[in-house]
Structures are given as C-alpha cells and as structure tokens.
C-alpha cells in the first residue's frame, strides 16, 4: 500500500466523518490559536510598547550633569556609629552619614559648554540641549493675580520634551485647546498653574482661556554678574537680550585683562566688578519682595514676555505608561507650556555665562542605545539619568509574561492533545469493524498504524492552518479596537499592532500541532493495529 494511498484514505476517512473531524479540529484550532495569539501577542505587545517608547522622544533622552565633587573624605568621627547592631546595618547607616557629609561639604559643578557640546558628537546621540534652572513669575496682565513659582524646569522641560508634550497634551487638555503648530504667542497653563491664578472651581477653568499672561523669566542673583545687574538697572526690562553683543564684548575684555598692562590689583578689581562675586546686591535689584521666601529673595528679572492662554492641561493623573514616563522625565511637570520654538529662542538668547547651565539633555537615536550612551557618560565623569531602567523593567515583565502565557498555551495544547487522543480512541472503537474488514482483506498492521497516524497528522496540520487564519482574523479585530482605544487615549496616530505574526511562529505552531496530533494518534493506532480481524468484524 502506497503512502499516497494511505494519505488519500486518511482524508476520505476524515471527510466521511465530518462531525467528529470538526469537533477534533475545533479543539486543535482552539489550542493552536491560543498558542499563536500568545506568541504573536507577546511579541506584538513588546513591539507595541517599544513603538510607544520609540515614539516618545522624552524616553530617549538622557539627562546629565557634571556632578557633585566632594571636597574631601569625611573624618572618621563622622562615620562613627554607636550601639550594638549587625555589621550590615552599621554599614548602611555609615553610608548614609557619609553621603550626608559629602552633600554638605561638596561642590556642585556646573556644566561647561565644551563638555556638553562634545557629547553631541558621540555615536547614537542626535542632539544635546543645555538646560537652565530659571525662575519665572507669571501673572494675568490685568494684574489681578500674581504667581511666583520656580517653574523653569518648565523651560528645560518644554525644550527637551517638546514632542512628548505635544503628543501627551492632546488628551490632557481639560479646557480650551492645544497649541497650534504656529502658535508662538500661545501658552498652556497646567491645572495647578490655573489654580494659583485663581481659577479654582471646575466651572471657572474655561474662563482662563483667552486671558493674557505676563511671564517674567528670572534667575538666581548669585548666578548673575554685576554687569547684568547694572544692565538691568540701566536699561528697560528685557533690553539685556538686545545688548548681548555688549555683554560679550565686556566678557572678551575680561578674558583679555591678562594681556593688558594693568596691575594685578586693578585686574582683580575689574574682574570682581564684572562677575559680581564679591559685591553684594542691593534691595531694588531683587524682583520678589515677599518676606520669608528665601528662594525668591535672590531673583533677578531677565526677560518679560506676554502670552495668550490657549488651554489648561491636566496635572498628573493616572494616564498609564506615558503619563508615568512624562512624570519621570519632567518631575512634576511645568506649570506653563510654551511653543518649543519660543523655548528654543529663549535658550539661545539667554547668555550661558549668566544662565548657569546646570545640566543638559541628550537625545539618543534609539532606546536600545540608552545604556551605551549612559555608560559613556559615566566613564566621562557625568552623572546621568534616563528612563532606561523603566524600559528594562518593562522588558523583564514582558519576558516573564511571555513565558507564563506560553506555558499556559502549551498546557491548553496538551489538554487538547489528551482530548484528541481520547476522541481518536473512541473513533477506533467505533471503527473496529472497519479495521477488521481491512485486515481481513489483507491490510498489514503497519498500514493501519500509518493510517491512524496520518489521520492525526492531517487533523493537526489542518487545525493549525485554520488556527493561523482564525488568529489572523482575531488579531485584526483586536488590533482595530486597541488602536482606536490607544489613539483616543493618547491623541496621536498609533501605527503599532498588538499581534506580530512571524513565519517562525507559524511554522512552530504547525510543527507542534503536527507532532502533538500525530503522537495523540499513536495509542489509538496501536489499538487498531492489534485488533483480531474476526473479533473486530463481529463487533457492533
């Protein structure tokens, strides 16, 4: 008997017992679909999360700063820990004492332009943006409410994560609308900003839209030279930016002092006059007059701009991963959101010498390269932070979930196989007379064995192929739902799919189904082969 005839006979047998075949196929399709969806789903979810992460520019940013330089090591008496305790606990406490001492006795290094600009030339680094800690004070133009806040991570935040903000604000707008692409005069106010401006009731929130907001960009006085203060007092507010050339010329003069014939004493005097380090500031140079606010006592106005409030952005809230990443990357988030180009021009206009570049943010080409760039930053002596650890954690969770779900799917397939074995044994019992007839007519045991295995294998392969089609249909359906949901939630097009089918998965599922169903046919096949033809033919 030829193998092709056995296969043909197996097909005929399956076809002639449609109901049982369909039941068997249903079991296999369920198992294989589970397996396929599991493989494709875990890969798709991982890819989808990575797609969200890749689309989220802020996640690819690494913040870095020059770091904290301890002046010296703490004296031994500082690290003395009294009491009876385990060595581990003693070491932990000593570590904290050491850190506290270093914090109190160290020097915070500011970032040099050359340092961060060099980073921009590294592999995988697309751009580097310097950040300044600028204070800002904002009020409604009618003077009704004045808010003094440190919000200029607002400035840094908007510059660094412009696309993130742009992307995230779609759904986070609670009143008004988001900024248009050319809306340079617009500003979005956070809920907390609106609250400080006096719009506390929900019903009032929309009333802030359309109001004009006056924003004073300021900085700490110790970061500002005497020259700036002179300029501030001599010129109209904001003129400093128009006189940058003058400032640079004076700086050049200061740098070339050593080449002059002036005495050292004279040189020192001029340096002090220009940098202001040794000269206390006068009261009228301080922007904020509130008592008891140590921080705002040292503020100096740098520039004033007016914006129209276009909308209110929700502060915080549970927005899932993206919100979490937003918060991680921008701490508490800015109170004011300006157009990225405004932020960029502010930074360009603001002289570094007076702006105190405290940190910088590097944009990496791909999330996978975050670790490499961070390592290099560490090697160069920078302190850095990024969302890399979150991505690692997400990846680990996805891997764990994949293993767990795969085991579950295999368990389902195993149950299917047992069920299939059971139904095939019943089928053999039902077909006992048929096998008896075949043996009486001259069928060898091997023929019946091969026939049964062939039926199992064909059922498995057909089941797996149907499951590929079913999985694909289900995937399209679920993808559609998920895409529209994500787009609604995030407010931007979401191209990723939840289920990624690979040819390897399809082949694997086909192989597993073939193997499982063939193995499921072994016991019934041996039963069929061992039948006594005379007894078998007599069985009803």
């Amino acid at each position, binding site marked *: *008997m030829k193998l092709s*005839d056995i296969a043909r006979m197996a097909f005929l047998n399956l076809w*002639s*017992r449609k109901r049982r075949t369909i039941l068997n196929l249903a079991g296999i399709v369920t198992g294989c679909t589970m397996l396929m969806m599991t493989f494709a789903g875990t890969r798709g979810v991982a890819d989808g999360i990575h797609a969200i992460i890749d689309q989220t520019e802020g996640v690819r940013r690494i913040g870095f700063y020059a770091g904290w330089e301890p002046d010296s090591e703490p004296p031994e008496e500082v690290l003395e820990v009294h009491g009876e305790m385990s060595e581990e606990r003693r070491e932990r406490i000593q570590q904290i004492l050491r850190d506290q001492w270093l914090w109190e006795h160290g020097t915070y290094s500011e970032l040099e332009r050359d340092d961060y600009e060099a980073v921009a030339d590294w592999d995988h680094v697309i751009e580097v943006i310097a950040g300044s800690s600028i204070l800002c004070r904002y009020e409604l133009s009618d003077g009704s409410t004045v808010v003094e806040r440190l919000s200029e991570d607002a400035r840094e935040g908007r510059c660094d994560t412009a696309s993130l903000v742009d992307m995230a604000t779609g759904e986070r707008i609670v009143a008004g609308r988001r900024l248009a692409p050319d809306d340079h005069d617009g500003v979005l106010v956070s809920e907390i900003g609106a609250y400080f401006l006096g719009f506390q009731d929900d019903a009032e929130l929309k009333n802030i839209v359309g109001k004009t907001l006056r924003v004073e960009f300021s900085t700490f006085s110790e970061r500002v030279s005497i020259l700036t203060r002179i300029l501030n007092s001599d010129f109209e507010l904001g003129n400093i930016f128009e006189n940058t050339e003058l400032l640079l010329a004076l700086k050049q003069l200061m740098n070339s002092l050593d080449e002059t014939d002036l005495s050292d004493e004279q040189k020192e005097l001029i340096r002090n006059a220009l940098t202001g380090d040794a000269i206390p500031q006068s009261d009228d140079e301080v922007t904020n007059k509130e008592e008891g606010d140590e921080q705002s006592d040292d503020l100096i106005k740098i520039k004033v701009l007016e914006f129209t409030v276009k909308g209110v952005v929700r502060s915080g809230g549970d927005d899932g991963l993206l919100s979490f990443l937003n918060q991680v990357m921008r701490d508490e988030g800015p109170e004011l959101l300006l157009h990225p180009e405004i932020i960029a021009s502010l930074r360009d206009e603001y002289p570094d010498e007076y702006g105190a570049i405290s940190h910088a943010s590097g944009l990496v080409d791909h999330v996978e390269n975050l670790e490499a760039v961070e390592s290099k930053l560490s090697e160069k002596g920078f302190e850095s932070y990024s969302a890399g650890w979150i991505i690692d954690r997400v990846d680990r969770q996805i891997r764990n979930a994949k293993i767990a779900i795969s085991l579950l799917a295999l368990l389902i397939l195993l149950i299917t196989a047992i069920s299939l074995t059971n139904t095939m044994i019943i089928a053999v019992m039902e077909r006992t007379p048929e096998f*008896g007839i075949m043996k*009486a007519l*001259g*069928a060898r045991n091997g023929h019946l064995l091969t026939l049964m295995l062939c039926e199992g294998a064909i059922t498995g392969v057909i089941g797996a192929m149907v499951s590929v089609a079913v999985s694909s249909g289900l995937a399209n359906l679920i993808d559609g739902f998920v895409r529209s949901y994500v787009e609604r939630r995030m407010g931007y097009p979401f191209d990723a799919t939840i289920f990624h089918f690979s040819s390897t998965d399809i082949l694997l599922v086909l192989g597993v189904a073939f193997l499982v169903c063939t193995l499921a046919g072994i016991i019934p096949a041996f039963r069929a082969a061992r039948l006594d033809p*005379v007894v078998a*033919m007599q069985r009803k």
Partner: protein
Amino acid sequence: MIIAKNVTRTYTGGSESVVALNDLSIAIDAGERVALLGRSGSGKTTLLNLLAGLDRPTTGSLEVAGRSLEMLGGRQMADYRLESIGVVFQSFQLIPQRSALQNVALPLILAGVPHAKRLTMAEQALRRVGLGSRMKHQPFQLSGGEQQRVAIARAIVNEPPVILADEPTGNLDSTTSGEVMELLLEVVADNKATLVLVTHDRELANGFSTRIIELADGRLVCGDES
C-alpha cells in the same frame, strides 16, 4: 490447492476450553466447488477462518495455494489474505462510509495498484456483478442482495485463486439467494478459482457444489477423499 492435515483449533476461555476443530484433515483440488456443511457449532466457520488466514490452528498444518500457513508471519499472512484469498461474508462486511466502488477498490489499494488502474478494475468487477449503475452508492443505499454482489465483486476484483464464502445467502431471501449463488458460481468459473462455501443449508450445498464436506462437532463426518 487446499490441504489441511490434522488441524485442531481449541478456544480457551478461563478454565474451560472448547475444541472447535478436532484433528481435521481434508484436501480440495484447484477449481473445485466445495460446500462445508454442518450445523451451528460444527466448526465450519472456524475452518473457513483458518483457510482465510484470519485465525491459526492450535495444532496441525494448513497449505493453501502453495503456502504453508503455519510458516507465515503476520505480514506474510496479510499478503496471503490479499493475494490468495477472496472472502464473501454472511453480513457482507462492507465499509458503510464508502461507496460500492471504493469498497471494491479496497483490496487493490492495499495491493498498491495505481489509482486509475484500480478504478477501472473495480468498475469492471461491479459491472460483472450487475451493479454498473450503482457504483457511487453507499451500502445503506443498496439492498441486501446488492450489498452481497458488491462483496462478491470485492472478493474477485484482484482475481484470487481461492474464494471463501461464509453463508453468503444467510441474510437474503430465497429468490435473491438463488441469484447471488448463481452469480458467485459464474464469477468463480470465469476466474477458474476454487470455491469453499460454508453453509448449513443442505439444499444449497447440493445445488451449487461439486463436493460436500460435512462437519459435526469439529470432526469430519463425510466428503473428504484424501
């Protein structure tokens, strides 16, 4: 053609054993039409099963169409059944899910005859038994007589030298029985095959056989001249 020497077949069930055939010796020549006659339990079906290679004797030897059956392994026995024997059963033993044509083609499939050739051969066999118009019908769509004709077509399709018929008219009315028996004798004669007919009907045995071998309690009563 068929030589049985001192064949005994004992069935053991628990502590009891039943001797179905007891030291039986017979010889049947090629082309003979022999009727195995006897009452129920006389051992005639047991003998037929032994000749068909569906069972093995407890002791003694059997030689059919030049093959010593006691020497054959399972695989060779299957080949023997396929090549040397055609069996017609009382209850037809057709596969219910298959058409008449597929049932008749089954021995040819087992013999590895190519698809086209076996279809032609099966069609010819069905035409030969007068079922040229019922080839696509399944057994349940055929009458008892027609089903037995299909069984006869299946038994002769690969032209075996020995045809064994076990009460072939047992499930048929008298008119149909006569038609079926005439057909059986016709095709056996055409194929120059040896026919062993098992029956308890003496009239039938007298009418359609050249020799009657009568059994009782597993022993030969009369009819063997060896």
